[in-house]
C-alpha cells in the first residue's frame, strides 16, 4: 500500500466518522407556545367530550365525540340515549373519518364551460343563486336563457328533521321555491303507504321489541339497516335477557339478523302475503283485538287450505301453525315486516297485511308505537326523483337545489335523478362529490356534522343536539347558515345572524332555557308526545283488500338487492375503513360479490370466487360468487354498495323501490376472481370453538392442565373480557371501534388478498347444523400462559402483572414466531409502514403508538384506556372501580354482549359473567388459560 492510498483511506474513514457522529442525535426541535392561551379551559393532552348526533344514517343515534387538543379522535354512543344507549354501529364508528376525509369539497365550486369545477368565493356563489332566483321568480326563468313561464324553483334534500327542516320551509316559502319531498333511497314507503291506507297515517311506527314476548319478523333486517339498527339490537338484548322471549324470523333470503332468531324459516320470495293472510285468518277466528268488524275485513282475503298456504309459502303446515300458536299465545306479540319483503313486487301487500295483522292482534299502541313514530314526515319516496327527472327533462325547473342527495346512485338504471343540467341553475349542497353533484352548476361545500350546529328529531318525542366538536377545517358552511344567507340576500332581512343563533332562539322558545341546558349537556331531550288513537279504517281497508291480488313470484331465479350493513344504501361506501372491515356473513372485505345458494352453486358447478354474469332485461353485471349458507335455492343476493348501477325500480303504488329482479339469467364466465375472503374456513373442524348450548352442570374454566411454570400472581388486577354469545349479533361494531381506537392501519385489498389483514378483532362466522351460521368475536385471548410469549427471542411479548399479554413494539424485531405459535391466530404483522392519507392524521389516537414496519401487533385490551383509568383512580388514591374502564369494543357493543373488568374482583360484573354456568374458554384443553371468556348461546340452533 503506497502513501496515497493510505492517506485516502484515512480521509475516507475520517469523513465517515464525522458524518456518523453528526447524525447521532438531533436536538434542533422547536416548541411553539400560544401567543394568547385559549380561555376555554382546554388543557393540552386532556380529552374532552362533546355530545352530538351521528348522521351516518337516519336512525339518529347520539354520539359523544372525544376531542384532544382540538382534534376529534373518536365517536362513542351517548350513554343512556333513548335510541342507541351508549352504543354505535360499525358505520357510526367509522363516520369519524368523514370529517377529515381528503376528498371533502373544501370551497364553493362553479362548473365552467368545459364542465370542470373551478373555485369561487362564497359571495360569488350566493350572488349567482340570488340573481337566478330573482330572475326566475320575476319573469319565469327556463333552461339556459330560454323563456318559460311555468318554471319552478325546487329544493330537493336528503332527510332533514327539526329546526333545519323548519328553516328550509321558511326559505322556500320566502323565495318562491317549491320544497320537494325529501329523498331517501330506502324510505320504507311501502310500510308508510300501507299504514296510510289502514290507519290514515302515512307513518313508520317505532317497534318496542323490548316489551314483546314473541316477535315475528318478516324479512326485516333489524340489526343491519332497518330503520334504527342499534336501537333494535339494544332492545333485542334487553328482551332476550328475560327467559320467555321468543323470536321467529321468516325471510326469503339470508341475513345476519335472520341467524340471530330462535327460529329462522326461509319463505318463498313473494309469498309473504300468503303467510300473513294465513296468520290473519287464524287470528280473526279468535278475534283477539276485539274488533267486531275485523272478520269481514279478512273476508276479502284469498282463502286457501293450510296445505295450500304451506305450498305457497314453502313452509310446512306445522311451522305455519307453530307461528300462529305462538302469536296467539303471546301476551305481547310483535310482528315486523320490512327489509327485502317490503321492497319487492308484493312489498306493498306484505306491508299492508302486516299492518293489518298488527291491528288484528292488538299490537298497535303496545308493541307497535305510533306515538313515537320514526320521523319520516318530510321524506317522500324514491319515485319522486323519477318524477323530478321528467320535469327537468321538459325544462320545467328554474333553480334546482340538491342538498345532501346522492340520487344518481342508479342513474343508468330505471331509478335516478337525471337531466340536472337542464335546470336553469342547479345548486348542489354537499360534503363530498358524487354522481348527482357532478351534474350541478354550483357546488356549496357543507360542513361536517362534527363542525356544525343543529338538531335532529329522529322520532317523535326525542330531540338530539348537533353541536360542533371542532372548528371547521375548510371554507365550508352548514346548510342552515347557507339558507339564512340566501334569505337575507333575497328579502333583505335575515332571521338571525348565524344558524347557531337561529337554533338557540328556536330552542329557547320551544323548550325553555332549562331544557336547552340539558339538551346541550346530555345530548338529547325527551319531549312529551300526544297520545293519539290509531284506528283501522275498515271501509278503506276492505276496499283495498278487495282489489288486492297477490301475484306469485314466477320467474326464477330471483336477485335481491339488499342494503349493506357496511355501506347502507351505498352512502358509506367512501369510508375506506368500512371496506376494510369484513362483511359479517361472508367475511369479504374489498369489492362486491353475488351470494348464491349452495343448491344453485352445486347445480351450476360454481365455487367461491368464480365470476358470473348476472343479467336481467335492462341490467347486467359481472360479479364473483360467494356461496351463502341458509340462502334458499333460486335466490341470489347482491349488496347496494357493491354494484353500480344498482338494479332498482319503482313500485307505482307506494313509490318505494323494488329491490328484487325476477328471472335474472346467471352464467359462469371462465374467470375466477381474486376475492378477499377473510375467514379461511367456516367449519369448526369439531374443535367446539362454539360448543353446544349448555344448560348448566359441568365445571368450566379452571383448566386442569398441569404446568411446569409457577402460577401467575396478579397483585392488583387480572383484566379479563367476557363475551356473551347469547347476545352477540355479529354486527361488527366492535371491529370498527377497535380500528379507530387503536390506530389499526387500513392496508387495502392487495394485502388482504395475501391474507395480511390487520384487524385486532374479527367476527368469525361458523357453519352450524340446519343451515345455521353462528358468530364469534375473536381477539387476543390474553392467555395466562401464552404460547406466543415463550417463543419470543427478545421478550417483546410477555405476561404482565395485570394479566395482559403485553406487546412492546419498540422491542419487537419481527421474527413472527409468536404469530406462528398463536392457536387463536390473532397476531398481526406490519409488512410495511402503512401510508395513511395525512389528512386522516388527526384521527390517530395519541395514546397509542403507530406501529412501524416489521413489528407485530395485536389486541392490547385497550391498555391505554386502562392506563388513563388508573390515572384518574390514582388522583383519588384508590383502585380502579368496576365499570370505570372498558375496552373500545365492549363500549360500543349495541347488545352490551361484552364486559371488561377485573377477574379477581368478586363483586365485578365480569367476575359474575366469567363464573356463569354458560362460561367457557376457546381451545381450553390447550391449557392456555385465556383471559377472555365466552358465554354459550341460550337458544339451541333448532332452525328448520
Amino acid at each position, binding site marked *: 500500500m503506497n*502513501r496515497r492510498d*493510505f*492517506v485516502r483511506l*484515512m*480521509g475516507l*474513514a*475520517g469523513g465517515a*466518522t*464525522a458524518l456518523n*457522529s*453528526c447524525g*447521532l*442525535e*438531533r*436536538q*434542533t*426541535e*422547536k*416548541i*411553539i*407556545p*400560544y*401567543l*394568547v*392561551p385559549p380561555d376555554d379551559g382546554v*388543557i*393540552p*393532552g*386532556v380529552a374532552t367530550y362533546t355530545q352530538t348526533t351521528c348522521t351516518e344514517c337516519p336512525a339518529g343515534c347520539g354520539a359523544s365525540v372525544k376531542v384532544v387538543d382540538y382534534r376529534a379522535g373518536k365517536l362513542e354512543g351517548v350513554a343512556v340515549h333513548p335510541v342507541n344507549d351508549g352504543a354505535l354501529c360499525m358505520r357510526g364508528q367509522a363516520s369519524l373519518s368523514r370529517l377529515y376525509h381528503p376528498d371533502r369539497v373544501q370551497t364553493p365550486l362553479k362548473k365552467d364551460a368545459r364542465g370542470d369545477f373551478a373555485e369561487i368565493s362564497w359571495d360569488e356563489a350566493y350572488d349567482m343563486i340570488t340573481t337566478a332566483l330573482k330572475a326566475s321568480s320575476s319573469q319565469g326563468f327556463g333552461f339556459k336563457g330560454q323563456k318559460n313561464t311555468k318554471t319552478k324553483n325546487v329544493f330537493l334534500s336528503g332527510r332533514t328533521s327539526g329546526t333545519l327542516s323548519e328553516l328550509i320551509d321558511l326559505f322556500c316559502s320566502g323565495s318562491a321555491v317549491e320544497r320537494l319531498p325529501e329523498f331517501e333511497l330506502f324510505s320504507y314507503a311501502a310500510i308508510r303507504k300501507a299504514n296510510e291506507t289502514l290507519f290514515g297515517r302515512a307513518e313508520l311506527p317505532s317497534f318496542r321489541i323490548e316489551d314483546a314476548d314473541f316477535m315475528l319478523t318478516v324479512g326485516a333486517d333489524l340489526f343491519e339497516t332497518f330503520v334504527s339498527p342499534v336501537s333494535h339490537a339494544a332492545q333485542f338484548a334487553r328482551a332476550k335477557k328475560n327467559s320467555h322471549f321468543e323470536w321467529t324470523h321468516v325471510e326469503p333470503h339470508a341475513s345476519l339478523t335472520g341467524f340471530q332468531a330462535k327460529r329462522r324459516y326461509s319463505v318463498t320470495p313473494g309469498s309473504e302475503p300468503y303467510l300473513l293472510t294465513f296468520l290473519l285468518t287464524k287470528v280473526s277466528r279468535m278475534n283477539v283485538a276485539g274488533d267486531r268488524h275485523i272478520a269481514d275485513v279478512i273476508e276479502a282475503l284469498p282463502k286457501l287450505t293450510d296445505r295450500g298456504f304451506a305450498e305457497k309459502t314453502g313452509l310446512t303446515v306445522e311451522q305455519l301453525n307453530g307461528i300462529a300458536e305462538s302469536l296467539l299465545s303471546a301476551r305481547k306479540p310483535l310482528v315486523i315486516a320490512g327489509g327485502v319483503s317490503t321492497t319487492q313486487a308484493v312489498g306493498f301487500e306484505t306491508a299492508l297485511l302486516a299492518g293489518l295483522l298488527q291491528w288484528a292482534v292488538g299490537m298497535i299502541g303496545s308493541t307497535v308505537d305510533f306515538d313515537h313514530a320514526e320521523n319520516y314526515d318530510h321524506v317522500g319516496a324514491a319515485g319522486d326523483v323519477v318524477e323530478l327527472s321528467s320535469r327537468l327533462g321538459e325544462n320545467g325547473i328554474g333553480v334546482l337545489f340538491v342538498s345532501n342527495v346522492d340520487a344518481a346512485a342508479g342513474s343508468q338504471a330505471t331509478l335516478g335523478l337525471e337531466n340536472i343540467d337542464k335546470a336553469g341553475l342547479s345548486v348542489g349542497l354537499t360534503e363530498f362529490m358524487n354522481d348527482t353533484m357532478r351534474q350541478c352548476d354550483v357546488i356549496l361545500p357543507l360542513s361536517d356534522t362534527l363542525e356544525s350546529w343543529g338538531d335532529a328529531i329522529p322520532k317523535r318525542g326525542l330531540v338530539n343536539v348537533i353541536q360542533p366538536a371542532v372548528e371547521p377545517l375548510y371554507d365550508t358552511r352548514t346548510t342552515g347558515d347557507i339558507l339564512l344567507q340566501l334569505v337575507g340576500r333575497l328579502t333583505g332581512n335575515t332571521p338571525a345572524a348565524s344558524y347557531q343563533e337561529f337554533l338557540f332562539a328556536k330552542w329557547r322558545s320551544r323548550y325553555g332555557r332549562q331544557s336547552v341546558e340539558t339538551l346541550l349537556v346530555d345530548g338529547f331531550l325527551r319531549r312529551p308526545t300526544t297520545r293519539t288513537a290509531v284506528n283501522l279504517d275498515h271501509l278503506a281497508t276492505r276496499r283495498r283488500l278487495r282489489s288486492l291480488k297477490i301475484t306469485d313470484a314466477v320467474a326464477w331465479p330471483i336477485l335481491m338487492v339488499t342494503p349493506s350493513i357496511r355501506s347502507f344504501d351505498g352512502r358509506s361506501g367512501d369510508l375506506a375503513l368500512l371496506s376494510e372491515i369484513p362483511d359479517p356473513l361472508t367475511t369479504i372485505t374489498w369489492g362486491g360479490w353475488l351470494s348464491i345458494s349452495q343448491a344453485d352453486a352445486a347445480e351450476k358447478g360454481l365455487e367461491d370466487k368464480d365470476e358470473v354474469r348476472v343479467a336481467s332485461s335492462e341490467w347486467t353485471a359481472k360479479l364473483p360468487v360467494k356461496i351463502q349458507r341458509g340462502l334458499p335455492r333460486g335466490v341470489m343476493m347482491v349488496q347496494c354498495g357493491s354494484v353500480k348501477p344498482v338494479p332498482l325500480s319503482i313500485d307505482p303504488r307506494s313509490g318505494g323501490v323494488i329491490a328484487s329482479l325476477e328471472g335474472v339469467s346467471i352464467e359462469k364466465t371462465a374467470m375466477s376472481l381474486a376475492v378477499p375472503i377473510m375467514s379461511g374456513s367456516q367449519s369448526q373442524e369439531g374443535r367446539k370453538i362454539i360448543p353446544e348450548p349448555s344448560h348448566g352442570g359441568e365445571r368450566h374454566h379452571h383448566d386442569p392442565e398441569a404446568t411446569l411454570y409457577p402460577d401467575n400472581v396478579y397483585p392488583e388486577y387480572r383484566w379479563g373480557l367476557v363475551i356473551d354469545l347469547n347476545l352477540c349479533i355479529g354486527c361488527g361494531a366492535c371491529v370498527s371501534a377497535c380500528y379507530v381506537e387503536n390506530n389499526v392501519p387500513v392496508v387495502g385489498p392487495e394485502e388482504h388478498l395475501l391474507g395480511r389483514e390487520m384487524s385486532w378483532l374479527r367476527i368469525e362466522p361458523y357453519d352450524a347444523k340446519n343451515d345455521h351460521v353462528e358468530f364469534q368475536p375473536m381477539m387476543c385471548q390474553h392467555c395466562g400462559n401464552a404460547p406466543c410469549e415463550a417463543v419470543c427471542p427478545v421478550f417483546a411479548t*410477555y405476561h*404482565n*402483572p*395485570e394479566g*395482559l399479554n*403485553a406487546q*412492546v*413494539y*419498540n*422491542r419487537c424485531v419481527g421474527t413472527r414466531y409468536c404469530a406462528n405459535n398463536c392457536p387463536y391466530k390473532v397476531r398481526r404483522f406490519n409488512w410495511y409502514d402503512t401510508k395513511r392519507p395525512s389528512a386522516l392524521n388527526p384521527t390517530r389516537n395519541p*395514546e*397509542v*403508538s*403507530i406501529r412501524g414496519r416489521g413489528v407485530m401487533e395485536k389486541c*392490547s385490551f385497550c*391498555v*391505554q384506556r386502562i*392506563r388513563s383509568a388508573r*390515572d384518574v383512580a*390514582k*388522583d383519588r*388514591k384508590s383502585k380502579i372501580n368496576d365499570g370505570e374502564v372498558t375496552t373500545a369494543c365492549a363500549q360500543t357493543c349495541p347488545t352490551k354482549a361484552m364486559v371488561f373488568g377485573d377477574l379477581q374482583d368478586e363483586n365485578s360484573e365480569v367476575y359474575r359473567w366469567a363464573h356463569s354456568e354458560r362460561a367457557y374458554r376457546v381451545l381450553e384443553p390447550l391449557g392456555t388459560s385465556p383471559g377472555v371468556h365466552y358465554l354459550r348461546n341460550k337458544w339451541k340452533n333448532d332452525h328448520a
Partner: protein
Amino acid sequence: MKKFLAISAAAGFFAFFAAVFLALGADWYRNKRAPDQPIAFSHKIHVGKVGLKCETCHKYTHQSTFAGIPSVQKCMSCHAQVATDRPEVQKLSGYWERQEPIPWNRVHRIRIREHVFFSHKRHMKADVDPKLECANCHGEVQYVDKLRRVSSLEMGWCVSCHVSKGASTDCLTCHR
C-alpha cells in the same frame, strides 16, 4: 525516502484522529449542547431571584402529560412594566408587538419519544417520599441562566429511578 514515508504515514494517522475529535466537537455543538434560545431567558433570575414557582409558568405540570410552555401573553403580563429597558425583554415585546409566538428550542426531549408515554402529572402527583421535585430531572434551574439537559432522559436513567423509588417497571407503564 523510507523515513519520509513513515513520517507522512504517522502524519496521516494523527491527522485522522485530530479530524475525528473535531468532528465529535462539531456534533456536540450542533446537537448536544444547550441550544441557544431566541430570547436569552434566565431561570436564574425568574426562579432564583424573583422566586417564581415552576407552576406559575409551566401551569399544566399537575394536570396533564405536558408541563406547558407559558404563552407570550403570560410573559407580557409582567414584562409590560418590568425591566422593559433590557434588550432581551425588548426582544420579547417585539414578538408581542408582531403577534408572533416565540420559537423556543426544545431542551428536554426523550430520544425515541413516539414509543414513550410520559406524564408530568403522574410524576408530580407520585406518591413517593420525598416527593418528586422538578429539579430531580431538570436540574436546579434556579442557579443557571442558560438551561441545559442535565439528565440523559434515556431508558436506563428512567428505570434506575423507577427501581430506586419502587415505581412500576412493567413495560406497559411507558410503552403502549
